[in-house]
């Protein structure tokens, strides 16, 4: 550490606790409370990165989130490294490793810097213009451009850090813990409002915290001393929650605010472990007070980007707060009074101030007078026309401004310096206000955009609302807060405030130089390397909209989102184009205000919490029996049960065969189940299904097809009539929630007159399906009291029964075409009943089968799966299921759509069966079907929707939708694949047991 650059009497940095860190591989030292930026400056390191396009050496320019240049890569672990972080926002911790970005091989010797010498050849939109042709070369161009451009390195392994989310509801949220925010917070909390105050720094106080100047006093104390006492009183307020190291990322409508809290980033490496690194607060505030302050503007002059050129207020913070001198011989360049505060602070700390270059003619405010009293030299009506020094500024060139300020006159003065502070005035931070939908107004007097109209319960106070003088800030913040919260806090009335008032204002967006514009480099956007010349070029080339100029020149599009550059770009555009700034408007400020890590956005929704997982009551059995699982909606369903070394194909073949040869058992608990009660239950079913329900006998089941109002198949399932006015409906696994919502919708909105109540009971029941020729023997062992004879218990009926003392419902329905039973029992007993069935079935080689075998088995029977064989464009007529459409019913959902001109077309795609010429050839689902491969372009007639090798038929079978398919039975067609063409024949959809003999076998 360079001792000369630290002043020792500093109050904010603990100079007894030394911290070691690494920058670009070199071990350096700083103190607890430093940022990486302040520690680097204390080590006399200004050069920290290279610019994006020209690879110019760049240094620290600011002290907060607006920093455009000092962006670094933190950490070098493949899973923990983080690119594009601002050195000005990284709190120093033991073990910190950071490195420069965008330079190779090193920040000191960067090969890309050759671009700087060619910079006249790389104007705005150079890449767009040059690499347009020929179009197919882009692949090549992109590779090289990406190699030489780009910012930091992305981590290559999953992030090991932990992030989470929290919701927070409050009466008043105050964003910004500077003097205004503190006044507002105290006012709100004292009046019993549940208040939250957040600030992105590690302590409250903003810039007033270190404002110790004769020109700013409150009740005879320095403003910082007064504020310190205010902060102390905050800590005793009950209703107030203070969150530091928390920055608002987004401000959405309805006062919904996302804020990122840094919990461990400032901790030593060994203290971070197993703690939440960052927390995203999702805040709902009844009222929001924005007190985000202002950003100091740079000045736009030739070579204004060299390391050592720093915003004047940042130099002040480095000396007054961090105790770090940014240089030994500092010059200042300004168009307003604030640089004089910096000059006084530096002078009081023993740093020699060369001079202040001020573009104004002369001004006599309190603070300027004080500076003059300290003997600080001032160049009035002057500008800096050039700076020198490649990796660190070493001198500036000063000239007088002409009377109209459009040019420079007289002799050039060269002044040696190792640091230049610049101040171009202040830009209120209105980003959050505009994010929330607020409209801005323009104040001509000092060229600022200010909050105007908003639809939300919010106000802006302090300098983000255009109050820059201490006196105004206190008075207006207090009165606006009182009015907004409808309270009366008199703490801030009758204060005796001394506050230097700025008396003269002058602004020149692009300062004149002794060289012509084409020969200078006045940077606007430091990170993206766009200059004032680029913006002017864009205007000459015909761009008018600021949004277009922004994209064309990339001004304001870097990771800092133009926090420093936007105003000047607007100023130069308005000047050049002759449009008033207020009419020009601004570009849109979009969230996040500062970049967020993906981890913060995702929170704990990673790994097992990435998506919701639903499990059946029998899930553990499937696990114990080595099932592979398939995601169906949010459910984990047993897919197949491979035996040792068995492939999926072999397992599915074995399971499918066993189910038909003897017995299979399937966990069908995921099917949606809806309990329907009410005197109009039958009428309701008549209206929602295509077939008729009134005559269904109690104790019987019926298959139903549900359409959308557009006539397309939506869902299907079996419904059982439990009593006169009581049914239980089953839906598909994936459709359950949507069907329930849809049915409720009709009941509540279209048919409120119907006396029908729906209750979801999906999770109440475990559903165990036992199928196959031996299923009857197995079920009779499990439920010996139940008469399973075909006469008592025929296909499509159900029986209530008990297993031990627990009620169950046994349904004789079949999705495989086999004789089968579905046992529905309360979920808590599901696994036990399953095991009982399995035990009882052992002598019959009962085989658990998964969803894949189930799909295969039903395809053999030509049963559809809604959502696989249908896709929202298929009517029941297309499925050749005319038998299920009641002719007698006057109306049902989707009925009218079945005879629209489009749905009655003969040549719609219709469901057919497909057999391959080679019975071993299994088609790919989704493969296209064609009739003529010679005619180009080949007409695609349809596609395969389901395809399997059937172990029971010993051949390949498939279902498909084919144009006019109904009439094409027996016709030979083709499925062209990448390397071959497969010959197929269109057939009937039912491949096995057309006579339904097996159902009663």
């Amino acid at each position, binding site marked *: 550490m360079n001792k000369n650059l630290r002043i020792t009497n500093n109050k904010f940095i603990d100079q007894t606790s030394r911290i070691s860190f690494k920058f670009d591989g070199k071990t350096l030292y700083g103190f607890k409370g430093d940022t990486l930026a302040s520690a680097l400056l204390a080590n006399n390191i200004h050069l920290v990165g290279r610019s994006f396009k020209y690879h110019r050496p760049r240094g620290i320019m600011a002290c907060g989130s607006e920093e455009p240049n000092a962006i670094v890569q933190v950490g070098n672990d493949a899973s923990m490294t983080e690119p594009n972080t601002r050195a000005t926002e990284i709190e120093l911790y033991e073990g910190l490793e950071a490195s420069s970005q965008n330079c190779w091989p090193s920040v000191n010797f960067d090969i890309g810097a050759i671009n700087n010498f060619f910079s006249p050849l790389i104007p705005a939109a150079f890449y767009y213009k040059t690499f347009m042709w020929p179009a197919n070369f882009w692949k090549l161009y992109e590779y090289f451009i990406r190699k030489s451009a780009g910012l930091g390195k992305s981590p290559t392994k999953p992030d090991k850090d932990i992030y989470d989310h929290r919701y927070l509801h409050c009466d008043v949220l105050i964003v910004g813990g500077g003097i205004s925010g503190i006044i507002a917070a105290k006012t709100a909390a004292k009046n019993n409002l549940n208040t939250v105050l957040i600030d992105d720094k590690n302590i409250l106080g903003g810039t007033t915290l270190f404002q110790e100047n004769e020109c700013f006093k409150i009740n005879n104390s320095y403003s910082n001393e007064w504020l310190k006492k205010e902060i102390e009183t905050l800590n005793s307020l009950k209703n107030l929650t203070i969150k530091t190291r928390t920055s608002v990322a987004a401000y959405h409508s309805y006062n919904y605010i996302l804020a990122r809290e840094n919990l461990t980033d400032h901790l030593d490496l060994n203290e971070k472990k197993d703690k939440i690194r960052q927390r995203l607060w999702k805040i709902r505030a009844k009222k929001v007070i924005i007190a985000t302050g202002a950003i100091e503007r740079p000045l736009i002059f030739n070579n204004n980007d060299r390391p050592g050129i720093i915003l004047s207020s940042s130099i002040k913070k480095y000396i007054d707060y961090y105790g770090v001198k940014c240089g030994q011989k500092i010059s200042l360049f300004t168009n307003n009074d604030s640089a004089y505060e910096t000059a006084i602070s530096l002078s009081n700390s023993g740093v020699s101030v060369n001079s202040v270059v001020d573009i104004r003619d002369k001004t006599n405010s309190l603070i300027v007078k004080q500076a003059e009293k300290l003997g600080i030299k001032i160049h009035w009506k002057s500008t800096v026309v050039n700076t020198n020094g490649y990796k660190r500024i070493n001198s500036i060139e000063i000239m007088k401004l002409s009377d109209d300020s459009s040019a420079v006159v007289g002799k050039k003065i060269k002044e040696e310096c190792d640091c230049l502070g610049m101040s171009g005035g202040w830009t209120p931070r209105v980003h959050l206000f505009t994010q929330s*939908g607020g409209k801005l107004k323009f104040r001509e007097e000092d060229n600022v955009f200010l909050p105007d109209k908003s*639809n939300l319960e919010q106000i802006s106070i302090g300098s983000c609302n255009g109050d820059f003088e201490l006196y105004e800030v206190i008075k207006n913040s207090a009165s606006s807060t009182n009015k907004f919260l409808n309270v009366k806090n008199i703490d801030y009335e009758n204060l005796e405030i001394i506050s230097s008032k700025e008396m003269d204002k002058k602004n020149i967006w692009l300062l004149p130089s002794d060289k012509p514009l084409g020969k200078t480099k006045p940077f606007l956007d430091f990170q993206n390397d766009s200059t004032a010349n680029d913006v002017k070029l864009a205007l000459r080339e015909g761009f008018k909209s600021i949004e277009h100029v922004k994209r064309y020149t990339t001004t304001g599009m870097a990771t800092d989102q133009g926090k420093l550059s936007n105003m000047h770009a607007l100023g130069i555009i308005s000047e050049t184009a002759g449009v008033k700034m207020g009419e020009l408007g601004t570009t849109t400020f979009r969230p996040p205000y500062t970049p967020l890590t993906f981890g913060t956005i995702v929170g704990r929704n990673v790994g097992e919490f990435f998506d919701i997982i639903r499990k059946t009551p029998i899930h553990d059995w499937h696990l114990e029996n080595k099932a592979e699982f398939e995601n169906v909606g949010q459910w984990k369903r047993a897919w197949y049960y491979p035996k040792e070394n068995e492939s999926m194909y072999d397992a599915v073949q074995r399971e499918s065969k066993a189910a038909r040869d003897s017995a299979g058992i399937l966990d069908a608990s995921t099917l949606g189940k809806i309990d329907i009660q009410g005197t109009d239950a039958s009428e309701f079913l008549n209206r929602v299904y295509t077939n008729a329900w009134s005559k269904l006998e109690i104790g019987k089941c019926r298959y139903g097809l549900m359409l959308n109002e557009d006539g397309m198949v939506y869902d299907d399932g079996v419904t059982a009539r439990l009593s006169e006015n009581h049914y239980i409906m089953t839906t598909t696994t994936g459709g359950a929630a949507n069907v329930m*919502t849809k049915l409720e919708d009709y009941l509540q*909105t279209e048919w*409120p007159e119907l006396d029908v109540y729906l209750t979801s009971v999906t999770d109440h029941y475990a559903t165990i399906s036992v199928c196959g020729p031996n299923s009857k023997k197995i079920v009779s062992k499990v439920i010996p009291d139940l008469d399973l004879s075909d006469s008592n218990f025929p296909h499509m009926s159900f029986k209530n029964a008990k297993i031990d003392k627990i009620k169950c419902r046994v349904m004789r329905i079949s999705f495989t075409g086999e004789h089968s039973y579905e046992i529905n029992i309360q979920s808590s007993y599901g696994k036990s009943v399953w095991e009982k069935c399995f035990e009882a079935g052992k002598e019959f080689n009962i085989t658990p089968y998964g969803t894949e075998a189930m799909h295969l088995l039903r395809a053999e029977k030509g049963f559809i799966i809604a959502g696989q064989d249908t896709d929202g464009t298929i009517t029941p007529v297309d499925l050749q299921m005319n038998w299920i459409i009641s002719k007698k019913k006057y*109306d049902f959902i989707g009925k*009218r759509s079945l005879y629209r001109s489009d749905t009655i077309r003969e040549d719609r795609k219709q469901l057919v069966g497909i057999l391959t010429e080679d019975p071993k050839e299994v088609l790919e689902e989704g493969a296209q079907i064609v009739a003529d491969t010679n005619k180009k372009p080949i007409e695609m007639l349809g596609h395969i929707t389901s395809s399997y090798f059937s172990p029971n038929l010993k051949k390949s079978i498939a279902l498909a939708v084919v144009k006019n398919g109904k009439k094409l039975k027996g016709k030979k067609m083709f499925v062209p694949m990448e390397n071959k063409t497969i010959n197929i024949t269109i057939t009937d959809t039912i491949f096995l047991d057309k006579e339904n003999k097996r159902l009663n076998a």
Partner: protein
Amino acid sequence: MFLINCPYCGERDQSEFSAGGEAHIVRPKQPTELSDDQWAEFLFMRKNIKGIQFERWNHAHGCRKWFNIVRDTRNDKIHAVYKMGEKPPIK
């Protein structure tokens, strides 16, 4: 993210709700009497207004009731919330 004042449960976060499109489109009582064009008008034609819009919403993760809202699509402000079957309180 809106805050929606469910007419039954009170003010809740938007994530508890699902949107159901344009409000006040009544399913024809006698669909069979309608021409293809008339049926298509009911089935497909929806307004997409920049300004005041009447919408159906469902408190899907709460009381599961459907209701209507009046929303200004320019700023997402919800001007009124009312139950199914009720007349819109704003024109």
